């Protein structure tokens, strides 16, 4: 259903979209955007591939099968970040460094546990969204065949 131009555009857009997603995630604590938005942006990039290229071509070209598993990696990661403070006797989801303490930074990326939590959200949103897209596309293909 797509023309060559649509396909080409979709292919060319994928890399910039993923780069933007990672940028939004990394700068989350610094500027607009967060793990959720980053996850949706990345998922949109992949949804575009599905729509323009079709399921089979997309899944041949990209390691899509691994993406849905990221949803559960993300959930597990979020739970770990949430639960670790309990081991030290702090309430759930106490983030370190504490308010007022110094923070190590890598460029604009601050090394705070809240950012790790945000990254877990990113993985979960991306994994769940792509997982749903993949399963629906698969079911639609089966129905059509």
């Amino acid at each position, binding site marked *: 259903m797509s023309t060559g131009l649509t396909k080409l555009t979709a292919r060319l857009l994928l890399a910039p979209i993923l780069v933007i997603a990672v940028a939004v995630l990394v700068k989350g*604590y610094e500027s607009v955007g967060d*793990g959720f*938005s980053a996850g949706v942006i990345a998922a949109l990039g992949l*949804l575009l591939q*599905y729509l323009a290229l079709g399921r089979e071509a997309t899944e041949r070209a990209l390691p899509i099968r691994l993406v849905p598993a990221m949803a559960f990696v993300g959930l597990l990661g979020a*739970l770990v970040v949430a639960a670790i403070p309990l081991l030290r006797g702090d309430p*759930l989801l106490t983030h370190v460094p504490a308010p007022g303490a110094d923070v190590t930074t890598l460029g604009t990326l601050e090394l705070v546990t809240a950012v790790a939590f*945000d990254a877990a959200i990113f993985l979960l949103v991306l994994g769940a969204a792509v997982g749903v897209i993949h399963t629906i596309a698969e079911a639609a293909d089966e129905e059509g065949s």
Partner: protein
Amino acid sequence: MTHQPAAGSPDDPPHGATAARVAPPLSLLLAVAGFVAVLATWLAGGGGFDVAWAPSLDLRLNFELDGIGALYALLATGIGAVVFAYSWPYLPLHLSHQGRHRAESARFYALLALFMLSMVGLATAQDLIVLFVFWDLTAISSYFLIGYDRHEAESRWAALMALLVTAVSAVLLLIGALILHGEYGTFQLGELVARAEPGTPLTVAGVLIALAGLAKSAQVPFHFWLPRAMTAPTPVSAYLHSAAMVAAGVLLIGRAYPLLEQSRLVLDLLLAVGGASILVGGLLALTRDDLKRILACSTFSQYGYVVAMYGLGGPIGASAAAFYVVSHAIAKSALFLTAGAVTEATGGRTLLSQVGGLGRSLPLLAGASAVAVATVVALPLTVGFFADELFFKAAIERGTGYALAATAAAGLTFSYLARFWLGAFGGGPRGNPHPVPLPMVGAIATLAAVAVVGGIVSGPISSLAGDAGAASVGGPAPVSVAYHLDLRSENLMALGGWGLGLLALASLSLTDRALRGFARLGEAIGPDRLYSVALNALNRASDAVHDLEVRDLRTRVAAVLLPAGLLVVLGVIATPTEGAYVVGRVDTGELGLVLALALAAVAALGATVPRHHLTLALTLATVGFALAAVYAFFGAPDVALVAILVETTLALLFVGVFGMLPTRVLKREAELPTKPNRRWRDPLVGLVSGGVAFVVAWGTLSRPAAGGSVAREQVRLTSDAHAKDVVTAILADFRALDTLGEITVVAIAFAGVATLLRRGRLW
């Protein structure tokens, strides 16, 4: 479309065969290790831990192995070990009778282990919210276990019934906990007991908690779910009736006893419900023909004893109740396992009238089950004798009338259990019974041996029950039991009970008709019937609403928008309007905002024109993008970003869906004329909801300051959280617990979609 066999049919590949092999020894090991660990901790004087995981909400992971905790945790792991050992040979037989693959047994062990762990958690929890969570976990795991034979409609119905009765009543427990927290400011049982004073809030909370416990313990009038639940595989019934689920109800009553006993009303409620359950359960057990159904009626009758003892009150009542739970758990699990073994030996017979004469061919089974029966009917040299001695003592303490009633209750119990045992094992041999696997009989014999040892050396169980009673009444509740060869009242009452029981058994042919009439009356107008009628009516009502709602998409949208709009109109009318609707000035700097708003308005009007699907979708997307621009100009860049993402997703999805539909269908649909009744209704709904939204937005924007303090506080704290973006700091830090809940929902929704579309497989 390829057709796949339904999950779980025998021609499935042996998926999980390894798990099915290692599950029985692993779960047995888990139970034994748990038993040893609990026993060692209790002998060392108890222990526990307390982690405040959400201090601002006063939520703590507070566990302590006190007397009650030790008693029920030992039962859950000890009986659990026996049940796991019994399941090892039983479950493959059970599955092969039904033509199912034996790999399915892994699920069974996982669920049973979850059941056991949630019982241990429930027994040791000291925080009412944690207790509630474990309470519901037992309900959920029992739901799957009762419905384990999921191809049978009766199993599914029974599982749903058990879940609805126990999980709906669990809400009462939660409400009770919240009332207590509202009144005394804590969820911790220890602190509650110290702070609680008799009064209406305590009585109301007490009644609610007691009702939750009574429903779980299948007391009248909630008793109907328990006999149905015997459709579960035999090991599950044995566990559910003795050490888990049903025991959880009296565990809660024992745990909350210091709060409950401050109200006479609650104690009288317990006494009345317990007495009624003894009577109804005993009478129904005399009329039943199904082996497991007799035992199920017996179970809620026996728990009636426990509940009544809590109702009798005082240190004797509390520790006698705890003693009775142990004695009953040992005997009842042995009896359920016996029922399973009898069914196995007779090639699948489940009715008392079909079996009989097994005593000669299966002497070990007959002997072991005779000990179990003797334990429940309190013959000497079994632990049951002491249990009844304490029961009688508590009744005597309360008065002569109660003592007479207790004697009659003992007689009733004697008669139906004697009928059960004589019916299965007495009489001449009939046919040639199948051999019963030795581990199955061994499990029953082990329980019988424990009952006899407990009847000779009463020390360990007495001190356990004494500790549990002490935890219930918050003071010493020593248990002293012994054989006394004299004519004291307890002994006379025991003798009287056996005599009455023999008499009732002998006159069964005379009373049979009346008993059956009683049972039929219960079936016609009893709570079981009420439950079915109510559930079916609810289903029908829900179907009717659903049919109305999903007739077509616009009706559905109208069904939400119109009532919501009218409700808000009422709210707007009730709110004072002075200063609520201000027309401000427009600065030149806000030109972008005005333009974006104008674009959104034009696009919204334009959306009423197109007839082609894709044009309509894209016009709607224009509205969305224009609104995103409005957010951006209004100083909410994060919201604008999310709005753009949502609009892009929706636009792409529309394009994708339209691409999947045949072009001629889309064309035909686009050219259909509007139905006459729609011509007026749709614009009206649109105008009402749009108008209301306009008024609300205007009113809100006129008073932006109201309720801004939380937001200001969060903005102030953002730099403390090492962040510059407030929204991200809220999501990942200030309200991170909410986020955690939300992403869990996302993961569950994804798992649900994937499982549904892949016919039961996640991946």
